[in-house]
């Protein structure tokens, strides 16, 4: 695949994944652009990977994490994503976004990364393991922990709704 085509095809999804992961669309734009630039620098190799989009997403995540450490953002107090809403966004979608953000906030950086790669990047467990250079078992247990947290939150939310 040519780089230009790869860029057009994957930019939006990666940018949105970063926006969701870091709750900052400005930061998401910066780190996505930088990640694609690094992919362009190494395109001959990156294009040979099974999932060059996964490689780019991981690079973007790491850039976002470095940036977060430097600026010491307080994620729990940061406003929801800033930016114009899509015209056709339903109430349910907005509620979903709030729930996802709440869930991601409760996770470690690595757990957040794994979850976003799985549910936004649509990577399989082996693909995530290869992208993050760790064992499949580690990814599975990370996903399991994240799912348990999500399940506890969902039950907590149901309990509140029932009162």
């Amino acid at each position, binding site marked *: 695949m040519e*780089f230009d085509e790869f860029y057009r095809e994957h930019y939006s999804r990666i940018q949105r994944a970063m926006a969701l992961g870091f709750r900052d669309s400005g930061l998401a*734009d910066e780190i996505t652009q930088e990640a694609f630039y*690094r992919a362009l620098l190494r395109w001959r190799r990156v*294009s040979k990977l099974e999932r060059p989009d996964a490689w780019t997403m991981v690079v973007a995540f790491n850039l976002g994490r470095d940036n977060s450490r430097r600026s010491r953002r307080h994620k729990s107090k940061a406003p929801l994503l800033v930016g114009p809403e899509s015209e056709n966004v339903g109430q349910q979608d907005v509620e979903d976004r709030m729930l996802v953000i709440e869930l991601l906030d409760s996770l470690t950086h690595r757990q957040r990364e794994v979850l976003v790669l799985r549910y936004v990047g649509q990577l399989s467990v082996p693909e995530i393991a290869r992208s993050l250079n760790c064992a499949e078992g580690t990814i599975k247990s990370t996903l399991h922990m994240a799912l348990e947290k999500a399940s506890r939150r969902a039950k907590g939310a149901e309990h509140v709704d029932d009162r």
Partner: protein
Amino acid sequence: MSMTDELQELFDGALASLPPSTPPPISGLHDRLRKRRVKRRLALVGASVAVVVLGLGIGLTGVPSSQPAGAVVLRVAPGTEASHRELSADAKVMRTRLELFGATQAKVAVSGNKIIVTGAPAELSDPNSPLTQSPSLLVRPVLCYSGPYVESSSTASAGSLPSDCGPYAIQKDTPTSGGGFSTPSIGLDPALASIPSTTPADDLANPDAVALLPGSTSQPGFGRYLVGPTELSLSSSVATAQVIKDQNGMWTIKVQLGTTAAAQWNKLAERYFHLDLAVDMNGQIVDEAAIQPTQNTYTPFDVLILQGGSGGVFSQASANAVAAALQSGPLPIPVQATT
């Protein structure tokens, strides 16, 4: 619906709620790449002398990972004779290495047929430490790519490596009507999957033979490389070697070539303009450069980034040790720590 499916629906909804993102024009990325090449060229012209003069002072980042190991005795390999002059030459290189490594308290002295290092870092007592090795840096053309080794019932021996990859051979970029270049998409050569990698010993003993070498696992997903005969050896040509972290958080070594080596490297790289060259360090590909695929004309450059090492990933200590060994130059006589 399972929890996994529910989560997937949740994420799908969350994504759908985000404002659409239009990618900025791609010309911005290409312009940035072009400017990077020009900047590097200007930096080379202006700073090459300063780099050589300051090189030994710039040295390495990081500090030795452990307390001094006390005295370490270095001896030549059994059956090898070494004169006092040769051991003294080794001791001189070892002093430079240890200083670059950050072990400023270490003292190196020749005693009889051995070298004694007092106040040595713990790394030196490892018989396989890069501090007592002379890393080879061989520049080889990349012929084609292979996936990882897969053992099969009809496993071919490493002796049956092809020198021609047929339809899987690396090809030059082709110019496009828009004035840019298009990189041909080439798959992995399936015929190589059942061939084991060339061992480091074979690679070192036969630098002029074709070799099938693993890449660094600091970049997961990259398999193996079929490389052609060595075109250039850079083992004694490093001006400075600086340890830095890359964007994946992995320790890498940024190597600045000396003036003569830089000229030799650029002559070679220009010959391989729009093709791939790889750097083979002791039987592993630690750097692979597609030579300026987006440019119309070649721009000289002289910095290599080495990734991975023994086992595939540099620790900070091993990166520091390799960088010290590269920058100090090879040991005239190989030595090893003995108990």
